[in-house]
């Protein structure tokens, strides 16, 4: 008898999610979907608001990496006020924003690795769900120090955000054309040489240790890590004009699974020439694709894995060294291994720590020239690399300074098709031909999603596990079995 399995809620990000999996008569997966089940209507209700509100309004879509929305909107508004794109700001303006952004990248990546992924790695994918969370890690005496380290790395990144944006969550630092404060010498000294462990050098050291931890895990579980939800895809991200990894500004590049450039370093102000979105009836989240390749073949991945596939090098010494070892693993070709995203993310964490230290040592942060204005424009696009991937903001503004059009493609949306593929992959690998759905199978689906989107998981997952519910339905839609992730098991027919 054919069955439908629902995993709900997978969790939220810019939305709640759930998974439905259909099994045919032979218990083979015939269809699987990740549904994003939340809708806000931002594109419409922001219309009529003055443009300078956008950076503080939009970030309230997502409190997990609000800095990304804050800065993407500010970058679009830079264009509107005639300050140009990215490189048009004063050195203080640009570097303060970079510091804010790399601080955000650092805290978000640390949160993801320590709070979300480490329970799976340290305790095991099939560990008892009651302890398979960061509290379980903290209460395990072998890992206690590590849990504290995760908490402090996040704290350090949040402190950077506080001193650049004004507050840790939903700050106001970036304004159209620049920034509203510089970094005082006291603030600089605090962040650069603060009391152990909250200083830049310690963060670099801890980032290196986290990377070593992952590599050690990888050497012990190579087959698992390599084979888990592998599939080839296109990859898209910003890169600096010279091809370097850059989270804040650059040109758009996409490569295919073989590494051929399919989007050749284009100006993102013209993103509409290259990117479109498909609407499907079963999800509130749209499906972006490269128009030239079409809906079928034009989808792509974004995020740490994609960024290290598009970038030619990393402009900081320690991370570059790690990057070379990482690239050697796939002979310089794009890496399409789902779980290597964690590896890539930790290399980026190290890079962020190195950049933070360099920026803090830069005297430009203490200068007073904060804002640039020029010829007022009717339209602007802001783009950057959020922790989870490329984030697009696009606005039109009328003569009365009111926003008349807003279009957002958030990182999670860019990964919509890849996450759906990952779910299908894992569902087939773990559930095909099985008569019973077990908790580790459900967690495997989560593990796949988690690799793409810290937000999708860290949302309900901030400290541990997202709640999951799997329901089995027969083909008349009658519930025949239900299972919850706290191991309660009910039979209803």
């Amino acid at each position, binding site marked *: 008898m054919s069955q439908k399995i629902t995993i709900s809620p997978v969790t939220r990000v810019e939305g709640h999610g759930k998974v439905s999996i259909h099994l045919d008569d032979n218990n083979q997966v015939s269809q699987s979907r990740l549904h994003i089940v939340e809708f806000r*209507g931002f594109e419409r209700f922001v219309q009529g608001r003055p443009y300078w509100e956008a950076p503080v309004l939009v970030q309230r879509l997502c409190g997990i990496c609000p800095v990304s929305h804050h800065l993407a909107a500010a970058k679009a508004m830079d264009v509107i006020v005639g300050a140009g794109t990215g490189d048009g700001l004063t050195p203080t303006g640009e570097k303060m924003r970079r510091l804010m952004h790399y601080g955000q990248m650092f805290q978000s990546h640390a*949160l993801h690795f320590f709070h979300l992924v480490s329970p799976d790695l340290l305790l095991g994918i099939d560990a008892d769900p009651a302890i398979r969370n960061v509290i379980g890690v903290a209460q395990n005496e072998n890992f206690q120090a590590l849990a504290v380290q995760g908490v402090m790395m996040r704290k350090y990144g949040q402190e950077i955000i506080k001193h650049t944006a004004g507050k840790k969550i939903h700050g106001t630092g970036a304004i159209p054309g620049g920034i509203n404060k510089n970094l005082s010498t006291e603030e600089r000294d605090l962040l650069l040489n603060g009391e152990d462990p909250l200083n830049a050098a310690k963060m670099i050291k801890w980032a290196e240790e986290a990377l070593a931890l992952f590599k050690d895990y990888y050497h012990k579980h190579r087959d698992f890590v390599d084979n888990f939800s592998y599939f080839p895809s296109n990859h898209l991200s910003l890169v600096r004009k010279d091809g370097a990894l850059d989270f804040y500004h650059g040109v758009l590049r996409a490569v295919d699974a073989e590494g051929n450039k399919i989007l050749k370093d284009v100006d993102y102000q013209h993103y509409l020439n290259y990117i479109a979105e498909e609407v499907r009836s079963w999800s509130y989240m749209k499906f972006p694709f490269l128009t030239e390749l079409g809906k079928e073949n034009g989808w792509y991945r974004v995020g740490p894995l994609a960024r290290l596939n598009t970038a030619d090098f990393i402009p900081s010494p320690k991370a570059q060294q790690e990057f070379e070892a990482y690239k050697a693993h796939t002979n310089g070709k794009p890496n399409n291994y789902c779980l290597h995203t964690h590896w890539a993310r930790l290399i980026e964490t190290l890079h962020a720590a190195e950049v933070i230290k360099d920026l803090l040592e830069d005297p430009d942060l203490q200068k007073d020239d904060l804002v640039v204005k020029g010829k007022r424009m009717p339209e602007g696009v802001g783009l950057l690399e959020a922790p989870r991937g490329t984030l697009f903001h696009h606005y039109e503004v009328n003569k009365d300074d009111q926003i008349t059009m807003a279009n957002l493609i958030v990182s999670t949306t860019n990964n919509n098709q890849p996450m759906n593929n990952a779910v299908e992959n894992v569902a087939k690998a773990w559930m095909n031909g099985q008569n019973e759905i077990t908790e580790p199978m459900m967690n495997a689906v989560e593990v796949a999603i988690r690799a793409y989107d810290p937000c999708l998981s860290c949302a309900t997952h901030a400290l541990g596990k997202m709640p999951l519910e799997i329901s089995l339905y027969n083909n008349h839609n009658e519930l025949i079995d239900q299972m919850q992730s706290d191991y309660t098991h009910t039979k209803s027919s």
Partner: protein
Amino acid sequence: MNKPIVATTSLAGCFGCHMSLLDIDERILHLIDLVDFNKSPINDIKKFTKTCDIGLIEGGCCLDENVHVLQDFRKNCKILISVGECAIMGGLPAMRNGLSVKECLDEAYLNGPTVKNHNQGKVMPNDEELPVLLNKVYPCHEVVKIDYYLPGCPPRADLIWEALVALIHGNEMDLPYEVIKFD
């Protein structure tokens, strides 16, 4: 004395309030000594397994599903706290309240610049798997009784910490003026 039991949820919020709870940093390790967590994103408990002492609610109600979750919290928690502007007054998502749901959906799926030339079939999300949007976003106290309100967007970490400690010890707490005005 048994440890007080705390449950938390995010309805139509941005998760920033939960992130602010995480911003108590090292104190999170003390928190696990002070309280037990029941249904919450921080663990695996999907359905209430016992009556809770304190329920923390982030976000208002924009979907039918949010209403069900909120009612469930009211039933299972002795004290409910609206945490942050979204729970208290709808917050940013309530900016859609002056508009029809259709206008918002049309903008996102039919008229936006990345969809308008690529959705000839005028496909709209309408699958049975998707929860239904309410006509407007409701603050929590319009749906169930709320006992306390913690202001801020998000309430700063110290405030959440102090409120929890005060409640656990049965003390009153001070809300200084600067945290009551909107931020």
